[in-house]
């Protein structure tokens, strides 16, 4: 029985190795990119969109290749959770032997994967996790092109206090690593400046009806800003509920929702009138006039027949940055790591990239502020 099982496992493993090996050896000079995306469960919200961006980028760079290199991507489902992410990362490293890895979205998963890539000496390029721990202390093999929670939080708090003259805030956040982390940074900085946080309302991802929360916010009296940290789905419900309760501008109130880069472009259209006045940081602005952004938007629309989101854009940028590193001489994990670290003023769809000593992108042009107008269009606030 046991022997049969072992044989079975071995043969299954062998088949797995063969298939992956076949893909890997199809081309001689290939940069192998491993992608750790959540593709099952609720986290597949990220994975599906990430994959679109990656596919578009691959299509573009593989037309000509870079320095004679083609690019191959192998996806593993890391499920937005530490253990599955660890398993996926190890499988990726063992069997696909990537030159560089991109992903995860969820901070827990990214943090769990970091020691593994460090041990395997494969660079990890992250664009979706905001936890400060990823780059502080971080490790030499992990890079992040997205502004972390502290960068966003400080910036948001200062702008809320100084430019919006907000003094009273209510924090709404999902009870996740990212939700709590972002809310805490905002709170610290906002109160440091002299603002007051009237309530911190955290909720699980399984909360559906936000009328009760909106009612509670409405009962708190005058509120100036409502920093909101949720994903698209719950975000829509919150915005509508706050408007219904007459709290926010969209519902005839005075409060303004503000937030970080979590929400996709098109959120306002989905939310409708309720989103009026919403001010948020976006990393990807589809109205961006730079050619790189223009090309991306049109290519994306052509391929998928839909507007790209920031997730699409981030994934696209990750691949394109790797291509840029390869162009600058990267050809294996070590040289790609060095290349990434040496990146100066790389201009991507979501802004420019330059890493500090902790491998955190420090370019502040990745933080744009947008305000939602009555016709649901965006206006850029140029607050940086």
């Amino acid at each position: 029985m046991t022997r049969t099982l072992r044989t079975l496992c071995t043969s299954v493993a062998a088949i797995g190795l063969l298939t992956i090996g076949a893909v890997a050896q199809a081309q001689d000079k290939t940069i192998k990119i491993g992608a750790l995306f959540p593709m099952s469960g609720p986290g597949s919200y990220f994975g599906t969109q990430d994959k679109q961006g990656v596919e578009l980028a691959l299509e573009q760079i593989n037309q000509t290749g870079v320095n004679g290199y083609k690019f191959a991507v192998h996806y593993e489902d890391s499920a937005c959770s530490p253990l599955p992410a660890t398993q996926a990362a190890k499988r990726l490293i063992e069997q696909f032997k990537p030159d560089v890895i991109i992903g995860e979205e969820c901070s827990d998963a990214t943090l769990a994967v970091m020691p593994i890539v460090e041990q395997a000496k494969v660079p990890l390029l992250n664009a979706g996790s905001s936890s400060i721990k990823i780059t502080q202390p971080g490790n030499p093999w992990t890079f992040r092109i997205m502004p972390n929670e502290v960068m966003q939080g400080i910036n948001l708090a200062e702008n809320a206090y100084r430019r919006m003259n907000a003094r009273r805030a209510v924090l709404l956040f999902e009870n996740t690593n990212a939700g709590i982390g972002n809310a805490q940074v905002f709170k610290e900085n906002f109160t440091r400046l002299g603002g007051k946080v009237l309530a911190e309302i955290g909720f699980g991802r399984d909360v559906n009806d936000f009328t009760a929360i909106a009612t509670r916010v409405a009962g708190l009296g005058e509120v100036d800003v409502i920093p909101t940290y949720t994903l698209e789905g719950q975000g829509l419900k919150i915005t509508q509920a706050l408007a219904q309760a007459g709290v926010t501008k969209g519902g005839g109130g005075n409060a303004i929702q503000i937030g970080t880069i979590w929400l996709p472009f098109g959120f306002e259209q989905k939310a409708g009138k309720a989103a009026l006045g919403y001010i948020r940081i976006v990393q990807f602005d589809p109205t961006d006039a730079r050619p790189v952004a223009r090309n991306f938007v049109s290519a994306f629309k052509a391929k998928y027949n839909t507007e790209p989101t920031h997730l699409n854009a981030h994934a696209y940028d990750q691949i394109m940055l790797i291509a840029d590193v390869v162009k600058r001489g990267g050809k294996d994990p070590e040289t790609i790591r060095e290349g990434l670290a040496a990146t100066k003023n790389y201009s991507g769809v979501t802004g420019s990239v330059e890493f500090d000593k902790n491998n955190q992108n420090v370019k502040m042009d990745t933080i744009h502020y947008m305000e939602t107008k009555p016709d649901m269009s965006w206006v850029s606030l140029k607050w940086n």
Partner: protein
Amino acid sequence: MSETVFAQQWLGKATSSRARFLGYLTAVAVIVTLPLVFNDTYWRTNLTVCAINVLLAIGLDFILGYAGQLNLGHSAFYGLGAYVSTLLIVKLAVPFWLAFVAGVAFAGLAGTFLSLFAVRLRGHYLAIASLGFAVIVHQILLNWISLTQGPLGIYGIAPPPALVVDGTVIADFRNLTAFFYLVAGFALLSFLLLSQLVRSPVGETLTAIREDEVSAASLGINAAAWKVFAFGVGSAIAGAAGCFYASFVGTLVPDAFFITEAFNILAMVIVGGMGTLIGPVFGAVLLTILPEVLRGLGDLRLVVYGAALTFVVLFIPGGMAQAANAVGERLWRRRSA
């Protein structure tokens, strides 16, 4: 139910003590050779995950298959073991093995507590009560941020300290193989002890309770006490699995112990064949490896997993133990014919 009976008879009774000894010898041999056969870190990781899941499955089987208590909240004890040991190590710098003992004890006590509370409940009421307990534990881990870090998680949890005798390192648990030997060895030991226990009068007592509590009471069996005992033992084993999980993955977030995890463990027990100890071992291995093997199927992997689970329940309700039994019986018949 009758399918499980046959499985129990064939697997439980037909084995002489010599055959059992050979079985354990084989098990040791298999455990020793497995990491040598699978010599990449990915498969070695899976092996360790298998061993952790084996612990969870045999613990649940002891509660469910032997004492007949429908426990849908096994993930709670798993999580408590993980968090208690880790918090002791991280916050109070308690040595690993002491924290391990504390984690196991705490999980066991939690199981005892739940069982004491739920001892009057039967069948689906117990099922939902334990499910409710698991929801509450998960939510506490999630919301008591000042203690558990909640969803922020605990990172960089160290593996158990290396085993050093006279200044020589015998086993360094940063090494995957050593870690696998540790967990698999512990699982084997737990299996051995449980198997001794169920082959002692305790086994008959628990079976008697599972079959008919009134009748058991008429023989002087204190059903409530034994059910609490079984629950305590099963949840303590889950606590041990939790301690290993934390030090193995190095990262601890409450969502790892969401109630779906309890369903997974339950599925391992059922697919393996509940009421036999060996069945859930194979059930755990199969259901740990299956999703990994199915990775090639991409998006459809969990569809196939769900279908496989349904299929097993519909067509092999006694699980792998029943299937093995059927095959064994056929072979035996052929030989004797």
